[in-house]
């Protein structure tokens, strides 16, 4: 048997020792990005043949759709543009094609009804310290992996326990509980558009405000219709990257930007929420681009909220957003020129307060839902008289909120 030579032995040993080093240098699996090689798009799909056998009492014909050949319909409420054959159910799960007509299954059957402080939406520049009668029906046109309301957004209306509250009942209930506004919120109100618009019209007639808390994924025409009855909105700008929108939320960026432009053009008060997700939207350059776009298209007066992310739903293996990151983003946004920038999910932080963009004085101090300090009079700073954008309650300077109580 042939013996191995010294050269052969040394060559092989050297190869064995060098291999891992070379491997590491050219390793294609380095952790340079959280996003390398991930799935591209989690956009929802139509549910084929998933319509109920018959309509129930919570059905209404769709607000905006087009009939096609072969008894098909295409929903025109949101950019998903679901093309439904007979018996199909939409991506948002709340619309079905029955006999060539599009129906909503979420009319008068909210699954969640609460009275919330308006600051919870969050809406900081609209009627502070008032209560919002908040309703939601099941369904959503996106598929956000960190949805905090997935139990109602990612299910069909038939799968949840509901109340029976048709539009007049909603308005009556809101008045009974002395709420100043009705908030269409929690899941995605665009998916129960018909219910929302009819309720909102009645509410407006009765002197109640209408609040839209949404992902902003809606088409122009229904949005314009909504703007006619809307008083304030908080719209999520989940990221400033179309790729992340598709990967984390199952949507697209441009329609949401379009929503902001339209609302701004219609003069609706809105505030922007951005959830800072570690590894995805915690990119300072992206925040700068976002701020530049906001300033260029919407101006400097729309409040921007940076929210702290906590692991939730399917996105439960990321750490919470560091508070320092949020603070940095707030400073960046203010430096870029946005006048009102807030932090959410961070108790007892100055980022919860409103400061005058002109003189820098504290105007509204927020300790959670408790407002001990309020220096806005007739929508102006009580110190330098600068106009503070928003709709402000009629509080006089020095008026204090008492300590919170159960009430």
């Amino acid at each position: 048997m042939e013996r191995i030579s010294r050269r052969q032995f040394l060559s092989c040993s050297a190869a064995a020792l060098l291999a891992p080093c070379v491997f590491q240098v050219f390793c294609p699996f380095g952790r340079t990005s959280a996003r390398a090689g991930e799935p591209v798009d989690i956009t929802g799909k139509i549910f084929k043949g998933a319509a109920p056998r018959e309509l129930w009492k919570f059905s209404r014909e769709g607000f905006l759709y087009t009939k096609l050949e072969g008894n098909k319909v295409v929903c025109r409420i949101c950019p998903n543009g679901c093309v439904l054959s007979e018996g199909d159910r939409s991506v948002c799960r709340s619309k079905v094609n029955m006999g060539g007509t599009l129906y909503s299954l979420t009319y008068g059957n909210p699954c969640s009804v609460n009275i919330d402080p308006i600051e919870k939406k969050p809406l900081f520049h609209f009627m502070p310290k008032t209560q919002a009668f908040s309703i939601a029906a099941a369904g959503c046109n996106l598929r956000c992996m960190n949805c905090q309301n997935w139990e109602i957004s990612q299910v069909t209306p038939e799968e949840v326990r509901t109340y029976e509250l048709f539009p007049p009942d909603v308005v009556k209930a809101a008045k009974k509980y002395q709420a100043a506004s009705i908030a269409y919120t929690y899941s995605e109100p665009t998916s129960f558009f018909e219910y929302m618009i009819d309720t909102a019209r009645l509410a407006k007639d009765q002197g109640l405000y209408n609040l839209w808390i949404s992902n902003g994924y809606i088409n122009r025409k229904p949005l314009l219709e909504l703007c006619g009855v809307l008083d304030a909105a908080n719209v999520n700008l989940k990221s400033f990257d179309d790729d992340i929108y598709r990967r984390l939320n199952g949507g697209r960026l441009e329609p949401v930007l379009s929503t902001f432009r339209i609302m701004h053009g219609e003069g609706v008060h809105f505030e922007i929420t951005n959830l800072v997700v570690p590894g995805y939207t915690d990119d300072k350059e992206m925040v700068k681009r976002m701020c530049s776009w906001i300033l260029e298209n919407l101006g400097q007066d729309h409040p921007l909220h940076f929210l702290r992310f906590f692991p939730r739903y399917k996105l439960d293996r990321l750490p919470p957003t560091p508070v320092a990151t949020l603070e940095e983003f707030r400073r960046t946004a203010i430096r870029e020129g946005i006048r009102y920038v807030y932090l959410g999910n961070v108790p007892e932080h100055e980022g919860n307060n409103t400061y005058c963009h002109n003189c820098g004085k504290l105007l509204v101090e927020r300790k959670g839902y408790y407002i001990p300090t309020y220096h806005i009079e007739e929508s102006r700073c009580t110190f330098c008289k600068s106009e503070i954008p928003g709709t402000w309650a009629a509080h006089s300077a020095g008026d204090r909120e008492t300590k919170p109580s159960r009430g």
Partner: protein
Amino acid sequence: MKSPSEKAILRVVVVTGISSIVTQLYTLREFLTLFAGNEYVIALIIFNWLVLGGLGTMAARFPSRATPVALGFLTSVLAALPTVQLLAVRYLHDMVFVHGSSPGFYPTYLFILFTTMPYALLVGFVLPYSLFTLRGEMPHYPGTRIYIVDNVGDVTGGALFSFALVYLLTPMKALFVVNLMLLVAACLLLSPLLRTRLSIVVCAAVVMAINMAGVVLENNSLCSAEGELVHYEETMFGRLVVQKSDGQYTLFEDGVPVFSTDNTILAEEAVHYPLSQVENPNDVLIISSVAGMMGELEKYSLEKVDYIQLDPAVSAVEFRFGLLRTIKGLQVINGDGRSYVRDTASRYDAIIINLPEPETFQVNRFFTNEFFSLAQARLRPQGILSFSVSGFDNYLAEPHRQKISSLYNTVRDRFSHVTMLPGEKVYFLCSNSPVSDDIPELLGQKGIETAYIHSYFYGNINKGRIDYLAGSIDASTPRNTDMSPFMMRIMYAQWFAKYSTSPYWFTVIICGIALFYFSRITREEFVLFTTGATTMGAEILVIFIFQILYGYIYLKVGLIVTVFLAGLLPGALLGQKIRNKSRKFLLLTDAGLIVCMALVIMVLHYGGQSVPQALFYSVALCISVLCGFQFPIALALRGGDNPAAIRTFSADLTGAASGVFIMSAFMIPYAGILWATLGLIVLKCTSIMVVGMSHGKDQQASISVL
């Protein structure tokens, strides 16, 4: 006397056994850091492994000739695959799934299946192939001897992992050590057989390079894009990682972020909801913790704070990175919380439980009737017990509603006052004195300031939400007990609901495959199948019951696992010695297994904690001895030839796979411990019937079961 080739081959079999058990255990731990760590996933991982091993065994029939050279090179490949597998699992996970997300049932199953397939198939293949290689030189080489030698390897590997590797080495380093042993065994097998040793050297060099690459890349493979890895440790309980990002430290246990600095909300809720209820609290017991808790506890001028943490490595890390800090009266006790509550003579004003969701049998023990009874006995008359489960924002979904209802019904049996607060989590405040839901008011009376509660409580936890939660309780929902863990059933329902999926098709396909399999196997193989199922099922039962009675003591649980493996060896030796191997021995051993299961039931019913721990080890030993005893008998009755060997090895593995899955995923959660044990008895009875119904001579060709 053994020939050099036989020695070398047996050496390969032993070391393969060591390597396969160590690889299996590290792979299991790896998957638990990437996927949901519930019993369903654990059972799925083991099920996959054993089934693939069984398939690999079946594939050994295909090569027309088995040679030592081929065996040697296959073994070399086996020495490289574990490292490749582990690296593939870590790197591919983020390529296949959205980073930071937990996938659902089917994606989890498919990922586990495809990443473990190469190694599991090959390791299953190598065992019978080793036998056929030996029979190439010695045609009548007994199959049982390979089984026995493999067992030696398995037991050694299990013991090595449980009592040494997990303490001393990280996964890649541990795999490097065992794979080096396997590589040496392969080289020693090949060395006398080849004309030139160059190919051996090259092969060995490649395998070494791969294993070293694993060690070199280990930390890199754990790094995350959103933070700096500042601490990494493999403890006997799992993986601990601390990430630092922008001044925030986050502790991950098995891939799940459990603690972060700057999270006052959870700390305030965990402490103030219960302590505000007590007039002058002095002594508090905390089982597990949340970051920032100590600072909140300090506001109460407590005399004694006993903090129980199962894993000493976790408590060390918590204090090291400022997630917790030392306060007056604090005593950190590392051990099983339930055992402590049972054994301590101390009495407390409050017992605060901060454990994760009851998704495993281990954690479920803290959410049962029996535990609440223990806790109540350790409380002072005005004392309070507090525990929590995951919260909900605006709607209480059905599985969650059942979970909360079950817990409420269970704890209400022990405490006359139970109030639930729907905060970030749902908090249960349980006492025999009235419990108020107006926490800010209580804190105001005590003069205690908080950052979150005072400002947000009335907005987030208003009367409407509290009433909604209380009104959602279903009084008919079963209670959660040690012997009937209803929480586990709900946990599965919640998990499937989260992903809008169902195991229906998986179950249908598996049942279909099982029926097809039963239609093809012989009576003897059916016996081995049911014995494999019974043995693995019994192992899960024994570990589960042991934990309930004595607590989770890692070394003792590891010992039970080792005993279950170790008993196979003397059993197989005994079985091999029987001259006239007849079906009556199968019937007798089946009866023995039934007696063992009946003994388990009697222990449950009459014994409780008064039963000495040695009894559990004895039962474990008996079961595995009987299992090992059956193998040579069944093999001989099947004819003992190569196809018979393949089929008997395979039946044993697939039976074990079925036992694990059915027991963990179905029997215990849905039927409870008692009925699960009875189920194993029924299974063994069917085996007796099948064997007992056969006619004719023992050595006639066996016919299929169905």
